[in-house]
């Protein structure tokens, strides 16, 4: 009589269809929410972990909004170990409406695509090229057209822009004196390969903006927000950092050179307590649904006192009774949780759209799903053990006497 009557689990789940359905639904909702919240946090952190180790960012030590003089660039390039330095200037324009916000940067197009070759991939060139030729074609097109720009796939799907399209942006930081909007010609489309590049960015030629500034045709910062550069192989990044910063220690603008990872980490740190808030809420959600499941199982346990008595009278040990209870609970939690996790994966795209420009790289990592599944299992076990313990304490005669 030691075989566990697994069939009972199935029968019970099936006998209370409404309750089973409701409990599975509650687990589904909770695990879906949990995965979404955790994914926001992992998305934020992914930018840090995927940053290139050999890339440095030179910025003002005072503020993100203080520009570095343009004549810093040759001085930075002269530091031993520095290869390929590019300006990275925040353009800060918008398309038609202020709410159509996305990132735009002016860069040195000659070196930019080399600098970021491992971070983004050109998926469409000026004449519809794809594959490896696309990048060379885009570089040539950028060199040939002062107004050329490259946009993310995300911008293509958001605004329907394609290669050959002229994009009009209204400047907030850089403004033309004649009050007209800025025009950029899309010559290529890129896809981010890592989370440190987002899927809603437009890259343009810095020298095009510079022409307007130097010609007195536009107003805006004359300097450059940050310089990005690669450290040549065989050089110690720390020595390169010191080599750059020591040149400017006495001004005119003190610099702070950091690895790209540290630069991204600073942004995450600026989000303040956001990850903590989200974590707390995620915890509350899991807790709340655990109560629901514990509740369901307590009820199931109570209704099963009579049956438990029969099983005991038939000679089944307490262990079998507990195993049945925990299995039933686990079946509910893993089914609901699994569906919730699946829904979190399925809804990635709609979440990206809803979260818009805040988290353009939102995605659910497999690790998050595994974590969620583990959580569902723990909830299932806790919810099953509680009534199992109560049941184990029953004496068969009392149990038999009780009404179902």
């Amino acid at each position: 009589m030691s075989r566990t009557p697994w069939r009972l689990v199935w029968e019970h789940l099936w006998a209370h269809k409404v309750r089973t359905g409701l409990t599975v639904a509650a687990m589904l909702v909770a695990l879906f929410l949990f995965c979404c919240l955790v994914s926001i946090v992992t998305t934020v952190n992914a930018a840090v972990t995927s940053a290139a180790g050999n890339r440095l960012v030179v910025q003002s030590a005072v503020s993100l909004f203080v520009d570095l003089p343009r004549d810093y660039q040759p001085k930075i390039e002269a530091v031993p170990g520095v290869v390929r330095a590019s300006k990275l200037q925040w353009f800060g324009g918008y398309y038609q409406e202020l709410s159509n916000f996305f990132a735009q940067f002016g860069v040195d197009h000659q070196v930019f695509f080399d600098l970021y070759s491992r971070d983004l991939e050109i998926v469409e060139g000026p004449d519809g090229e794809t594959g490896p030729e696309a990048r060379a074609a885009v570089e040539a097109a950028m060199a040939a057209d002062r107004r050329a720009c490259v946009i993310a796939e995300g911008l293509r799907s958001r605004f329907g822009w394609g290669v050959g399209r002229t994009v009009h942006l209204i400047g907030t930081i850089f403004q033309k004196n004649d009050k007209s909007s800025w025009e950029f010609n899309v010559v290529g489309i890129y896809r981010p390969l890592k989370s440190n590049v987002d899927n809603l960015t437009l890259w343009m030629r810095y020298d095009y903006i510079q022409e307007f500034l130097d010609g007195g045709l536009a107003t805006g910062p004359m300097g450059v927000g940050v310089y990005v550069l690669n450290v040549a192989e065989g050089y110690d990044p720390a020595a390169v950092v010191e080599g750059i910063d020591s040149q400017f220690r006495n001004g005119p603008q003190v610099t702070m050179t950091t690895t790209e990872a540290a630069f991204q980490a600073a942004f995450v740190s600026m989000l303040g307590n956001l990850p903590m808030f989200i974590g707390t809420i995620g915890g509350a959600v899991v807790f709340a649904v655990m109560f629901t499941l514990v509740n369901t199982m307590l009820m199931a346990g109570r209704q099963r006192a009579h049956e438990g008595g029969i099983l005991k009278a038939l000679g089944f040990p307490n262990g079998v009774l507990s195993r049945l209870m925990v299995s039933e609970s686990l079946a509910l939690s893993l089914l609901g949780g699994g569906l919730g996790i699946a829904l979190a994966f399925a809804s990635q795209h709609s979440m990206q759209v809803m979260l818009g420009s805040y988290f353009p790289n939102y995605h659910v990592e497999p690790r998050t799903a595994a974590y969620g599944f583990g959580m569902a299992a723990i909830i299932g076990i806790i919810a099953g053990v509680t009534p199992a313990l109560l049941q184990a304490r029953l004496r068969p005669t009392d149990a038999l006497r009780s009404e179902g």
Partner: protein
Amino acid sequence: MEFLRRPFGGLPLGYVLRNIAVRRAAAFFTALGVALTVAVFAGVISLRKGLEQVYEPRGDLDLGIYLRLGATSEGESGIGRSQADEIVKERPEILRDDAGRPMAAAESYLAVYMEKIGGGVTNVPLRGVQPMSLDIHGGALKLVEGRWLRFGSDEVVVGRALSERIRNCRVGDTLRLNTVPFKVVGVFDNQGVYGGEVWGDVERMMEALERPFFQRVLARLQPDQDLEKIAKDLEADPRHPCKFQSERDYMASQTRLLGFALTFLALFLTVIMGLAAVLGAIITMLASVAARTHEIGVLLALGYKREAIFFAFLFEALLIGLIGGALGVLLVLPLNGTKTGAMNWNTFTDISFEFQVTPGLMAVSVSIALLLGIVGGVLPALRAALLKPVEAFRAL
């Protein structure tokens, strides 16, 4: 009185209370689910309320802000010295003080890197002010420690909200801006955004930061001005067009992104968690009905109306909701007044604010809990009320 004792078509109130007491564990767990939902809602909304309070304009002052045309915040703005002088001296809508001086000040603004006390870096607003800035704000600024800065020297005063969260922001500390050390000589309090800023002499700031231009002109306005007309005139000004806004409108525009995000978060979470809580309530109530099938049969046989049974069960669910709501409010109440910081995505600076659990918010939270109880209770109550008397009577 008779109605209060037997409100459900003759069923005594005690009947419902007894039912909850009998299944207190289940009722408590269900109420906890409701409580956590309500707590998350109230927590997020209390953050938004705190944020709104910081940006709440002072009603008694008519302040105007002049920015560069096209700028959406101070950080993006830039106004040259000659234009600033012109605005301060010539604009007719600016109020004059007793000595006949225009109550307007040209200010600089820059978000600078500072270290948080708990570790990490954040953007803190650094404002260069003129002596008139202090008069414009009048009683809204209170010195709580040290003294005000001396204009012309490398000194700063720090908002109280900052001095508790950011390094080097206490009286006697030194703040290094680019290559120049500034001495912290005082801490001031302001209920609004300024309580989270560092203030120094605008001329010294511009020199230290090598930024020889202002970001805005702030002015106290004469009463009863047609602000829209002023804004239109200034935008079309042939010499020096600029963007004019009342401080009220400006402040409102500065919390758009974060305020929207928090509202969205609160609604999203409440709907989804509420769904889970309602499912929990339905499960509990269905079990309650199932366990009492025989009892309901007896009641029906005794001649109690179906409505009476419906309302008795609905009331049971409502009570569970009420308990959950009260618990949820108790959970978030300790948050009230807790200081926190967040990034304002409009200005890209750190703002310090407090969770605000207001009585209104508590009322809304409890209402949501009651609603969750009702929604969770309707189906099971219907099921109870529609039981067939004979079959229910037979059920054991």
